[in-house]
């Protein structure tokens, strides 16, 4: 069972209260971009085993989208943060590094 804290209403929301929005921090390639870029944006995901940034929506609660950093193998949650964040914030990176010393944001 995955439990994420909604950064908007502060509720410790269990997975069944949330709906998934898949990978976070994607760079959008829209009209005018090359077919390759568009295809990559739509379909190509690293599908990491380990630290992952995700979008979630507190669907049964306050209805807000937020972002979460968690480990896909252990379900360990490193933190959640506002959806209006273009890149993982420093405190989330710190929290991950303190638990996964060999992890770096580029991977």
């Amino acid at each position, binding site marked *: 069972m995955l439990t994420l804290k909604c950064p*908007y*209403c502060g*509720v410790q*929301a*269990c997975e069944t*209260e949330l709906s998934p929005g898949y990978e976070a921090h994607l760079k959008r390639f829209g009209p005018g971009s090359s077919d390759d870029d568009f295809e990559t944006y739509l379909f190509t995901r690293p599908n990491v085993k380990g630290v992952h940034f995700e979008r979630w929506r507190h669907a*049964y*609660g*306050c*209805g807000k989208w937020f972002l979460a950093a968690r480990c896909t193998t252990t379900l360990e949650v490193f933190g959640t943060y506002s959806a209006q964040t273009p890149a993982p914030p420093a405190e989330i990176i710190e929290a991950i590094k303190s638990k996964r010393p060999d992890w770096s944001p580029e991977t």
Partner: protein
Amino acid sequence: MSNAMSVLEGAVSTGFVTVRDAGLTGMVSVRADLTDAATVAALSSCGITVPVVRQIVDGVAWMAPDELLLVTEYADAPALAQKVQAAMADTHALVHVVSDARAVLRVEGAGTKEALAKLCPVDLATLAPGEVRRTRLAQVAAAFWLEDAENAQIICFRSVADYVFGVLQMSARKGSEVGVFTR
């Protein structure tokens, strides 16, 4: 004008707690940025104080960072909505009477927390009275708050009121007490 009817028509069910239709309740939904000073000022000119996160105070419930629910008498809701709408004319806001779109139920009795805990993924041991918890009640969305340790009010969509009444009735069936909050 047709007569307004509460969807459960006053249904009452007695198990280890009593589940009852709370009857017609006035509800006004306000959508606006609650952190915006203009919004707060407009609301306070109508006598509405924005509660802190997830609280319900004097019938004003915090539902989301941009949503309030005003709970009042059924007959008073249209006038209240009109008053708030007028006060918020210059702010980016939506005010609407949702009394007939929702249903309100009450759960009463010593096992109230237990009846709810069986259905909702909520830590009822730490839920304080006066805190609104929007959550999943079995398979549908609902919001509830404890008035005190033994009384709760539940708001759900009118279309699922019968389902909510049914699952609460089953959850409160005599002999199915777990006793987790009374140990």
